[in-house]
């Protein structure tokens, strides 16, 4: 069992990923935007963060930068989960790598099963 933080603004997707992770017996904390995510992280330390990029208020990259700035949070693996086009993904990949992101998933390319699998593998590698 792992503590997963899901940062996602789309309620249906939140419901979907939450259902899957809970089915797999993981604990999911949800933040629906960047600001909320950072607020929650003040008093909470998840095992892994699944982070959306395009969100209202603070976007995923800003959140990522903040996380990496904070020593207590820096070690937490982050997987970017996005529905941006591949072109943007390509452009952002370098930035993401520089910011120490662990993986980069496109939502429509992967089933919830595959996402869980990635998360489990990343946690095991860590």
């Amino acid at each position, binding site marked *: 069992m792992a503590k997963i933080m899901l940062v996602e603004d789309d309620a249906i997707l939140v419901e*979907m990923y939450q*259902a*899957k992770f809970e089915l797999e017996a993981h604990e999911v904390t949800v933040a629906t935007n960047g600001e909320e995510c950072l607020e929650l992280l003040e008093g909470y330390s998840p095992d892994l963060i699944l982070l959306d990029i395009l969100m209202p208020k603070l976007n995923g990259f800003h959140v990522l930068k903040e996380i990496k700035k904070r020593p207590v949070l820096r070690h937490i693996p982050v997987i970017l989960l996005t*529905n941006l*086009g591949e072109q943007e993904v390509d452009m952002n990949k370098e930035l993401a790598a520089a910011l120490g992101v662990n993986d980069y998933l496109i939502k429509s390319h992967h*089933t919830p099963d595959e996402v869980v699998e990635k998360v489990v593998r990343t946690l095991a590698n860590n």
Partner: protein
Amino acid sequence: MSDTSLQRVDSVLTDTSKRLLSTHQPSEVLRVLSDALSQHWSGAAVTAIAIDGVGRLEAKDDVNWPKPLRSALNYGLITPSTPGWSGLVEDGAPQWLSTDVLEQFDLTTIDARQIQFAGQVLGYVIIGLGADSGRPLPGIVDLWLAQAGAMLANFELQRRLADSTSLQESMTSGLMAVDHLGVITSANRSVLELLSGTNLVGGKLEDCFKEQEGRINFDVSPGRIATAASTGRELTFYGEVSEAGEVVRHLQLIVSPLGGSALAGSMVTIRDVTPLIEKTIEANEAVGRAQRHTRELSEMADIAELTSVFGFELEEIYNKFLGKLASLMQSPKAVLYLYQPAQQKLYFKAGLPATDFPKEIELSSSHPIARAFVTKKATTYKSDQNELVLPISVHSKVLGVVCVSGRQKVYLDHDVRLISLVTARLAVLIENARLYHDVNARRERWEAVFQFTDEGIVIFDRKGLIVGFNPASVGLTKYSPREAIGQHFSRVVRIITAEGHNLQITPIYQVLNEAKTLTKIEQLIETKNGDRIWTESSYSPIFDNAGRVTSGIVIMRNIQKDREVEEIKSDFISIVSHELRTPLSAIKGFLDMILKKDFGSLNDKQFHYLTRVYQSNQRMIDLVEDLLDVSYIESGKINLNQHPIAPEAIITDVVTELAAKGFEKQITLKVNRKQRLPLVLADDTRLRQILVNLVDNAIKYSFPKSEVVIDFKVSGDELITTVTDNGVGVSPAQVDRIFQKFGRIYNPMSIQAGGTGLGLYIVKRLVESHGGRIWVSTRGEGKGAKFSFSLPVAKQLPLI
């Protein structure tokens, strides 16, 4: 005196007279005379000398005479300058015969006698008498001398007559002697020839010319010629001899009085002066021509001067030219027509008089002006007056026609040449004026463009200094023309990088030094007030006639708004794709969980149909993906990170990924690689995408239980990868369309195979973005297909 001596004297006397009468020339007379004298004086030395009409002497020589006379006789010529001559001229004893001489020749006396006729000395007889010479009978010697004189005079007269006759007859001039009554007393042969008369002698001079009237026309009447003799003055007349209506000969008639008195009659000389008259006429004509040329030259000079005076006002040029032309050609009428290509007609431009001509002439008409224009040839013709029509052309382009008319005389080649010279000038003038108007109009148009276009136009000289700066440039850079002109281009149009650094290198050097044209380059410029504007600029050199770059021009368009729009569009695509993917992801995720029975079991029908929903959803996801790719490719926004990569790893990945898909259809994927592949210049993500598409297609269209083979070949600087399948193949008709967007709709097999219809189009564009090519070959429908693409091989970097 004895009988015998008397008989002898008598016989000598008569014999001598007879002999003298039968002589034929003066020397014969002299010989007969000296023979007779020496016989008469036995033993006397006698010589006879005759003087001819011009003072020459003929001698009969029997004796050795003293030297002075001897030498004269030897020459056969004694003239008054001959030494000893003076001794001969006196009748009596010659002074040069001294006593010594007489002794030397055993002579006692010398007697010299003159041979005379009518008081004129015709010769001499010199007689040397010895002591035994008898006395001559008085009167006999005188008789002989008189007879000899008569004979010599006769010969002299005969000679003179013969001379004068032959002289007259051999003269080409006609000579007639006319007596004081006007009767012709003699005429030589030339008179007969010149006057074609028969025997004129004995006729009246007046009648002679009256007879000739009609054939010979003198400048005065025949009567006047006849009375001319009586005036006592020499008068000259002229006449023309006509044959068949044409003058064939000119005659000069000079009537000169003879002997200074009217009674003495007159001499009429007739000369054929045809060559002289012709020469005179020719000379007069030459003078006339010279005068005309002078006048023409001065007119031409006037015309040449017009060029500088007129400027470029065409109407004025036309009218003045026609005026000059008319005066040059001495033609009261002149007209100018010019051709209008648009209407295919000749239009009246100017005329003298201004109202006498049709306003336009159809090219197809038979009007001589239209004909001259069409045939490009000068023509002369006669209507109610003589006309000369001449095309006006410059550089073999015919501009129009000039026509002069109304002159009495026919226009000659000379006129055509002259008018050609003038019209050539006119043509150049018209052409120049047209060019001037054209250039002016163009300049005005260009000026308008320069002033009112939205695009900034900057013109710079060879050194890069600004010489032209239009209002739109002011709008772009915020510099006024006063600030910009004379400044270096790079100081006014400040090109900066996206980061805001000044770009030191401006493209104008490529334009000026390398004569390069640069089109539509996007440049960020900083304005005078520090704003940054995106521009799209085109640079071009400006050449002179010799092809040298003299300056350059930049046309700048403000694309700041376009850029912003582009960004919005780009964002729009991103947002749309994001917004589409989100619900698609949710459908995909929930269905996946349901199908994996995360929420409980499903009956068979539910499972089957939900699987169909899942597949349809997946197709939609793929379509969104491909559409996104197409929009990136077409907007030129595709970012290729091309670098040298080893293709093996990517190929292995792709084959591994797709092997499962092949397995379902029992299709074997085979990679034919015998040696290490060279590095290629490619973006690894895109190379993967290309390969996935081609191999995936190959599997889709293969017949079950067949093989898909991937081959490689290095050709020049390219690596050619070929994916071969054994499947439905491609028909020749499809070959052209297969790489088009949604090209697969022409293939009946493709619907079954699924896919978006954009795959091969994206692959083609991706390959081409890499600098490669893609093509398909097929052995026909049902016989499989071969897709090949090339990628540039990365050059081996030298080891350092």
